[in-house]
């Protein structure tokens, strides 16, 4: 198992969440998180950030553009 300092751990969170760490590193991250409140909270905030990013304001194409694209799709069959 590897041992990490808090700043090293902060740099590994994405790799940890992606399951891209080798076993000793992953175990090291877990062991560190189990006994470091600051890093545990930091990882929670990372997860919350990812959650917030996945909830973007809705977007859609202007209705006239959507209509033109539907027509273009329909036209294609006649060519």
């Amino acid at each position, binding site marked *: 198992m590897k041992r990490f300092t*808090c700043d090293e751990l902060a740099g590994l969170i994405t790799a940890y969440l992606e399951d*891209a760490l080798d076993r000793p590193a992953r175990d090291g991250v877990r062991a560190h998180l189990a006994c470091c409140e600051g890093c545990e909270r930091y990882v929670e*905030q990372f997860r919350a950030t990812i959650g917030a*990013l996945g909830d973007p304001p809705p977007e*859609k*194409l202007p209705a006239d553009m959507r209509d033109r694209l539907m027509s273009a799709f329909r036209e294609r069959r006649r060519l």
Partner: protein
Amino acid sequence: MGSLAGGELPPDDVVVTALRAGDEAMFAALLDTWSGGMLRVARSYVSTDHSAEEVVQDTWLAVIGGIDAFQSRSSVKTWVYRILINTAKKRGARESRTLPWSSFEHDGVSVADQGFDAVLPGGWKELPAAWPTPESEALASEVRGLIAEGLARLPPRQRIVITLRDVEGCTSDEVCEILEISEANQRVLLHRARMAVRGWLADYFESVKQPE
């Protein structure tokens, strides 16, 4: 499949067959499921909403024209997004807002710029503050606005990677294929971008904190 915008679309072979047969409902479903995300991605490359809309329109026209020749070497989503990104890059270059795609120099946001002085090699100088759960719609909507504005300020490569991964829900394999970058590069860009966004959220939650 199905990760984009949470839409439930049938498997690729069904989609492709339907499009080739001229199934308008299928085309409409793709259009409505993917266009929102495509607009967000296009904005990483061009400077106005209008340009982003045109990029998305041109992409769909290319999809309509290319569906008969599409060869399932990638997923339909990856194919569409590659067309989108090529179209957006060309348009962005015309607007002379070119992406330094071959270099990393503009992505060099150092750890010190990210409010990381709170983490000392030995441990936390100060615990990160607990965040409120943004359960109220007003707070959630402010957070969404803050993130949307902030993304525009990220270095372009970080912005496109975090948009594809965390906003649009693409997998890391998909992003590497769409952008033609290595997995390690993808991860570094994503991590830097997430650190930046986490930092803005931390500042925001600090600023709205109720006095104890």
